[in-house]
């Protein structure tokens, strides 16, 4: 018993590192009161250790702790994405006015970021219903508090209230769905559920349909897919901008990892079983296709009217979730690989955009789109970088965003989802409109009054380059990324 636990622990190093870091940060926060830099540094070191050890797990493929979680290339890929996001957010927070305003509680902020990262790591690998719920909840509880971190600001506390109400309701509904699924199949691990579904030939049971929809609601909430997206704009606008950026990339990545693993493990049949019979039990592809169309279209159309850039990016992130859902629809290796590629690209361009919005808000005190008037002439580097990020978010060459979209669309066309690809392409055109509105304000409009200067320090410029260089380089040299993504889904049980 002890040996097996110890042996399993060797495959659980990144998560263990995060648990230890979390405790250390909390302790250091109490011991070194008034010197928040110390817990801060410990947290950063812990995240780096977790990221590196997660990356070292590349190539492993084995269940850990009696099929509670699994360490496979797919999980490792998402762990690396989450860890990279967490580290970059950590660095971004150094210049965030909102975080500095509550500098005394910086240790808490660090601890919560670490625990949210731990939850997302577990989400990436969870293969048991209980583990799925606990991982979702750990991520959720940490993010609820994080989004209310600047608790003196009423916007921030409103965001956290809305987040926890929507989050708790969707967890409850998902749990109810999971309990029905447990009753129907008698299994708690995903493979067992699939075998039970195959063996009992209970296609089209109304109870199965209800439970599937309830579980899908839980996932849909996590990745903010329409019609479970209502919390997203408010939370993203009210939360501190670093937290918004974290939620929009890491939380979404973990949600997608969990959703893809759940769908693939339960709805993809093992060899020798009629493929369509099991998939059609759930009718997942059609349902997800409709969800993705709604998500993209609503995200893009509502974004047109936004005047707060943070809120605009919130709607744009809903639209991006829709684009990635399109690739999930395909249920093929190419489709899942396209999601992985898209996430790496999305990480850099989206965090970059949020980073610049944060810096500009720090200098001008406003996230309003009007405060960007003439910014391109006042601060050339900021202006040009923001243009590159926005063009990449639209998905135009030669930026990385184009590569992300390219692989999504080619996966769709391979699988004959022509109408979905056309809707997706039309949506890219709509998104061009509101991204270009920002660019127009920066270059073609004169500022209303004497604007505050936006000056970057050396360190800030370096971090900007960390976002900017990959956004450009991945647009022209993407072969390693594509190979890595394909290798990460190759052993994943789908054809």
């Amino acid at each position, binding site marked *: 018993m002890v040996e097996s636990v110890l042996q399993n622990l060797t495959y659980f190093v990144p998560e263990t590192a995060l648990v230890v870091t979390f405790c250390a940060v909390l302790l250091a926060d109490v011991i070194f009161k008034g010197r928040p830099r110390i817990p801060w540094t410990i947290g950063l070191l812990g995240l780096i250790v977790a990221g590196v050890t997660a990356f070292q797990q590349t190539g492993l493929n084995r269940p850990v702790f009696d099929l509670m979680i699994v360490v496979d290339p797919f999980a490792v890929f998402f762990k690396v994405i989450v860890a990279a996001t967490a580290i970059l957010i950590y660095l971004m927070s150094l210049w965030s006015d909102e975080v500095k305003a509550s500098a005394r509680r910086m240790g808490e902020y660090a601890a919560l970021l670490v625990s949210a990262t731990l939850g997302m790591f577990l989400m990436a690998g969870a293969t048991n*219903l*209980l583990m799925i*719920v*606990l991982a979702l*909840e750990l991520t959720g*509880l940490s993010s*609820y*508090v994080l989004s*209310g971190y600047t*608790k*003196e*600001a*009423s*916007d921030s*506390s*409103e*965001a*956290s*209230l*809305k987040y*926890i*109400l929507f989050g*708790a*309701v969707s*967890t*409850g*509904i998902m*749990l*109810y769905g*999971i*309990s*029905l699924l*447990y*009753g129907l199949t*008698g299994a*708690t691990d995903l493979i067992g559920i699939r075998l039970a579904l195959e063996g009992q030939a209970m296609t089209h049971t109304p109870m199965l349909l209800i439970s599937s929809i309830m579980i899908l609601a839980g996932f849909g909430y996590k990745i903010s897919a329409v019609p479970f997206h209502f919390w997203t*704009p*408010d939370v993203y*606008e*009210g939360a501190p901008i670093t937290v918004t950026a974290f939620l929009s990339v890491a939380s979404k990545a973990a949600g997608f990892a969990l959703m893809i693993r759940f769908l693939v493990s339960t709805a993809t049949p093992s060899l020798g079983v009629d493929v369509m019979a099991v998939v059609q039990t759930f009718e997942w592809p059609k349902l997800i296709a409709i969800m993705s169309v709604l998500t993209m279209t609503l995200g893009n159309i*509502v974004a047109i*009217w*936004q005047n707060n850039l943070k809120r605009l990016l919130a709607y744009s992130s809903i639209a991006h979730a829709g684009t990635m859902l399109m690739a999930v629809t395909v249920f093929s290796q190419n489709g899942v690989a396209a999601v992985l590629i898209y996430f790496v690209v999305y990480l850099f361009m989206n965090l970059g955009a949020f980073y610049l919005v944060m810096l500009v808000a720090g200098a001008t005190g406003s996230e309003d789109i009007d405060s960007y008037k003439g910014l391109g002439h006042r601060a050339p580097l900021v202006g040009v970088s923001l243009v590159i990020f926005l063009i990449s978010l639209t998905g135009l060459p030669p930026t990385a965003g184009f590569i992300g979209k390219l692989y999504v669309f080619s996966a769709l066309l391979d699988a004959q989802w022509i109408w979905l690809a056309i809707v997706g392409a039309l949506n890219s055109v709509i998104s061009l409109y509101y991204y270009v509105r920002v660019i127009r304000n920066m270059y073609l409009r004169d500022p209303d009054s004497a604007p505050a200067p936006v000056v970057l320090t050396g360190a800030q410029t370096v971090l900007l380059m960390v976002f900017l260089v990959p956004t450009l380089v991945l647009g022209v040299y993407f072969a390693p990324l594509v190979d890595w993504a394909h290798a990460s889904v190759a052993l994943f049980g789908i054809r």
Partner: protein
Amino acid sequence: MNDILVWFQNPGLTHVLLISAALFMLGTYAILTRRNAIMVLMGIELVLNAAGLNFVAFGRYAVGTFDGQVITLFIIVLAAAEAAIALAIVLNIYQNFHTVNVDEINRLKD
């Protein structure tokens, strides 16, 4: 009439499932109609407990292993953690807005 009596005298899976479905409905009703944030949270508790009851019932009558009961224990802990954090957030809301009516806490919107 006699059948109904017999049905009530032999509680089984169906009975528990009906109760949990009723709990779930009541919880959802509370979530949708109550405007007080605390009341909404109580509705959420009902939904979580409905799921927990389901797990116990299925574990006892349908599956025959202890997985269901164990998961319920976790759900209870989870509900407690969620309630603790939610109440802290509601307290914070009250300090900022001087109300816990979810309709009045609506400064962020399109």
